[in-house]
């Protein structure tokens, strides 16, 4: 079931588009903002509200990198794996994260704190290697810096 607040936020988006199906991505973003990810049940709820088939909505949801169709932890780590970060050695940062957190790409730590995912170029290539945690950008990464950064997250 969508909460009253989710419903209200999604219905507000309807006003900004010529027809409500155009708010599909915004609706997925709203659900994810409240629940961290988009479950099958949420798709079903959305299909009623948007008057779209579940398959159609899932087609949109699974197309985009930043809509999560599986549960994620409290903080999603997006590590840039593109070319400038490759040249600057992101692979050693990845190895360090894997050994430190004990998870691989796509996994979540048992305490539900971090999920680790690769992301294409974060547009900060002059400060490679780089990653995002939640909404924060972290640049010029080294293993030492990572220790420091990770302690900032609850």
């Amino acid at each position: 079931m969508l909460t009253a607040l989710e419903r209200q936020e999604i219905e507000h988006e309807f006003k900004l588009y010529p027809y409500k199906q155009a708010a599909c991505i915004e609706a997925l973003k709203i659900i994810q903002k409240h629940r961290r990810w988009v479950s099958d049940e949420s798709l079903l709820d959305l299909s009623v509200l948007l008057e779209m088939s579940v398959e159609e909505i899932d087609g949109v949801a699974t197309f985009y990198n930043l809509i999560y169709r599986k549960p994620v932890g409290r903080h999603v780590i997006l590590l840039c794996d593109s070319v400038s970060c490759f040249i600057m050695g992101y692979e050693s940062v990845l190895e360090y994260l894997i050994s430190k957190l004990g998870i691989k790409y796509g996994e979540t730590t048992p305490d539900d704190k971090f999920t680790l995912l690769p992301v294409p170029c974060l547009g900060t290539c002059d400060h490679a290697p780089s990653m995002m945690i939640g909404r924060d950008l972290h640049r010029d990464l080294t293993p030492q810096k990572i220790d420091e950064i990770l302690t900032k997250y609850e």
Partner: protein
Amino acid sequence: MDRPLTKNIRKDGQPVYLKEYEEKGGYQALKKVLKMTPKEVTEVVKQSTLKGRGGAGFSTGLKWSFVPMEGDFKHKYIVANGDEMEPGTFKDRLLLEGDPHQLIEGMIISAFAIQADIGYVFIRGEYTYAAEIMEKALHEALEAGYIGNKILKSDFNFDLHLHTSVGRYICGEETALLNSLEGKRANPRAKPPFPQVSGLFGQPTIVNNIETFCNIPHILEYGPEWYQKLSLTPGDGGTKIYGASGKVKNPGLWELPLGVTLREILEDHAGGMREGLTFRGCLPGGASTDFLVEQHLDIKMDYASVAAAGSRLGTGTVIVMDDKTCPVGMVLNLIHFFAQESCGWCTPCREGLPWTEKILRKIEEGKGEMKDLELLEFQTRFMAPGNTFCALAPGAMEPLQSALKYFREDFINHINDQKCPWKIS
């Protein structure tokens, strides 16, 4: 003033908000434009010889002139493309985070030229700081009467909104971007009809790059002759935000006259290679441009000169490859990106890119055979321009085809030695 685009940008990294922007002469161009006719504005932009800064380098004024100015349209739209997901590209972030009102003013003027009534700033989802800054700046512009109804007491109405994307490189392709703005999967659309005639929700639409729009206020304020003289290349006006990443001493971004040489960017501004490393090659304008090597260092970084050297100016942000970086590994990294980001719409790209990635991985892991090189060459022809639905796959082939040309020996060494020479053990 020789650096119009970055003149306001603060050294402390803080954004320039409305008060400061106005103090530095902001929104004067808009006041001037509101006394002109739309046609005059487009004409000035045409004369300036500004070319789109999103990669393809198409004349901006000419593009605008395709928008029908007669007839009854429900809406006309203007969209700023801030998707910036091309690996190695980081210039639009600077403009979005550093001087948001410059973009807003550029968009209002452009909207006036085509008489658009609605605009969107489309920003990739990972640019969270840029989105916060734009949101605040848009609010300021609305309060001050620069956007909304009857702008500065004229008859012109224009609403401008922020749209944050949810990640996918193909969203940067302008017709895919429009599908994404409509809430759909971001597959590109067939052209024609071109967006200028039938774009967002079927209405006339202009999509331009962030940097392109940021040029507009200055062109209107100081005129096309002034703008042309900023450049070192006749017929190719303005400055360009160039950049460098990789193992140079001083990676970063610099606004320079269009047409400076590659050497000037890499040696004078990026400071040359780090101690103990040698330059082997570079991608001059992002991941989807062909490699240039030592012999090209003195070419001018303008659209025609880079094309004559067999590559593309692209986004103007140079990715430098040093002698300790494996060319096969680097191309594998690039193709991995393109394979992941293929939108899956057409077969050559959807199937060809993962296939290419597999061959490259085999070579990089020391299991390559000589016939794999022919197979890679086949792929570059198979995904050549015209064989796929959009420019993503042909773009992916550019670094590969040029690597096979300039670094062929490295591919052969991998195959002969059955290992990557750069991997220890």
